C-alpha cells in the first residue's frame, strides 16, 4: 500500500516538474537544421563568404577592444620613465618584422630559382623531346588527389607526364582551357615500365592509390630483388622518359599466390611539393 502511495506521489511530483516543459519534438527541427548547416560548412565551406562579411562587420567591435587595450597601455606607460624605451623597442620590433618578411620573400624567390634551374636541366636531356613549364595553382584531395597547373594548354597532349624538381611525379588527368589536372604516379590503375638498377631487370610498377607507394606487378618469387634496390624508368612503351628514378624497394613479401612476390616501392619524389612543374613527352 505504501509502495503504491509512494509511486503515486512520485508520478505527481514528476508531473509538477515537467508541466510546461519543453519536449524533444520541439528541439529536433532546430538540431536537424543546425546539423545540415554544420555538415555543409564542414564539406563545402559554405560559411566562408558569410564569415568574411560578418567578420568585416564585427571588425569595429574587435578594433575597439584592441585600441582600448593599446590606449590603456599607452596611458600607463606615459607616466613611467620607460615610455621612450618601450616605444623605441616597438619601432625596432616592427622594423625586424618587415625585414623578416623581406627575407622570407627572398628565400621563396631563391627556392623558385632553384626549382626552375633543376627543371631547365631536365629539358637538356636527350630523353625529352617536348616540354612545357607550368605553375601549381591548387591541390585537391577529394574525390581523388590532384594538382592543378596553370600552363599553356595548346602545347599539351594527354600522354605527357609531369616532373617536379625532385623527379617524376604524375600523369595528366584532364586538360582544361588554361590549366591541367595532374594525378599522382601512385593513383589507381597507373602502370609504369621500370628497371631494377642492380640487375637490369625490366618490371611493371602499378599504383594502388596508396600515398607514395607503388607495387611491382607479377614478379616471380625467384627474382633477384633486395630491399633498397633502386628503381628507374625503363622508357619502354614510350610514355615515360628513360632513366628517371622512381623509388626504392621498401618491403618484400610473398604474395597470396605463393609463386609471386609482393614488392612495395617507396617513391622518392613527393607529389605536391614545390611550385613549378615541367610537363614532358619522351
Amino acid at each position, binding site marked *: 500500500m505504501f509502495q503504491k502511495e509512494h509511486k503515486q506521489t512520485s508520478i505527481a511530483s514528476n508531473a509538477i516538474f515537467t508541466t510546461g516543459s519543453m519536449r524533444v519534438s520541439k528541439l529536433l527541427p532546430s538540431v536537424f537544421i543546425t546539423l545540415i*548547416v554544420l555538415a555543409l560548412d564542414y564539406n563545402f565551406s559554405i560559411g566562408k563568404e558569410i564569415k568574411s562579411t560578418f567578420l568585416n562587420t564585427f571588425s569595429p567591435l574587435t578594433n575597439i577592444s584592441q585600441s*582600448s587595450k593599446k590606449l590603456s597601455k599607452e596611458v600607463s606607460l606615459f607616466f613611467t620613465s620607460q615610455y621612450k624605451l618601450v616605444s623605441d623597442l616597438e619601432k625596432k620590433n616592427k622594423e625586424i618584422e618587415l625585414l623578416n618578411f623581406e627575407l622570407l620573400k627572398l628565400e621563396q624567390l631563391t627556392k623558385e630559382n632553384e626549382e626552375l634551374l633543376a627543371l631547365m636541366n631536365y629539358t637538356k636531356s636527350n630523353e625529352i623531346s617536348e616540354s612545357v613549364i607550368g605553375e601549381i595553382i591548387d591541390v585537391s584531395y577529394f574525390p581523388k588527389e590532384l594538382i592543378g597547373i596553370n600552363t599553356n594548354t595548346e602545347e599539351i597532349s594527354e600522354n605527357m607526364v609531369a616532373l617536379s624538381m625532385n623527379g617524376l611525379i604524375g600523369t595528366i588527368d584532364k586538360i582544361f582551357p588554361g590549366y591541367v589536372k595532374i594525378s599522382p604516379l601512385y593513383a589507381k590503375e597507373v602502370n609504369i615500365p621500370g628497371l631494377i638498377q642492380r640487375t637490369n631487370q625490366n618490371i611493371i610498377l602499378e599504383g594502388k592509390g596508396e600515398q607514395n607507394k607503388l607495387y611491382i606487378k607479377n614478379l616471380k618469387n625467384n627474382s633477384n630483388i633486395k630491399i633498397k634496390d633502386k628503381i628507374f624508368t625503363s622508357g619502354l612503351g614510350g610514355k615515360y622518359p628513360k632513366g628517371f628514378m622512381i623509388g626504392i624497394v621498401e618491403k618484400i613479401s610473398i604474395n597470396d599466390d605463393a609463386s609471386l612476390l609482393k614488392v612495395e616501392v617507396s617513391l622518392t619524389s613527393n607529389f605536391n611539393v614545390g611550385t613549378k612543374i615541367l610537363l614532358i613527352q619522351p
Partner: protein
Amino acid sequence: MTEYLDKRNNFISVYFFIGITIFFAFLLEVFVSNFFELSVYLPLTLMVLIYWNMALPKNIGLIWAMIFGFCLDINQDILLGSHVILFLFISYFIQRYFHRLRALYTIQQSLFVAIIVLIYQIFLIFFLSEFSDTVTIELVLMTVMAALIWPIIFGILRQLRIKFVQSN
C-alpha cells in the same frame, strides 16, 4: 475587447527584450575575448541564455539560441553550427527542468551553471582544437569565474525583468 492585442504586444516586447539582453551579452563577450586573447573565455551569452531559459522558458524558444550561436561561430571563425548545437542542447535541458532549477538556492545554481560552462568550454576546445599549455588553467579559471559571476548576472537580469517585463 483589446485584451488579446495587449497580450500579443506584450509577448513581442518580451521576446525582443530578451533578444536585446542576449545581444549586449554577446557584444560584451566578443569585446572581452578580444581584449584578453585567451583560448577560453567567459561565456556571457550562454549565461544570459541560461537565465532567460530558466526565468521565461515560454517566451524565449530556441530562435535566440540559434541566432547568437551562429553569430559566435562567425565571430570566432569556427565551423558554422558548433555553438548553435551546444546552445540548443543547453536551452532544451534548462527548459525541460526549469521548475527544478528555479527552486535551487543561488549557490546551487552557481554550481550548476559552472558545470554547464565547463562542459560547454570542453566541447568548444575540441571544436576549435586549441590545445595550448595553459588551456586547463584557463578552463578552471573561467569555470570558477562563471560560478562567481552568475549571481551578479542573475541579479541584474532579474531586476531588469521585474522592471521592464510583464510576462504571463
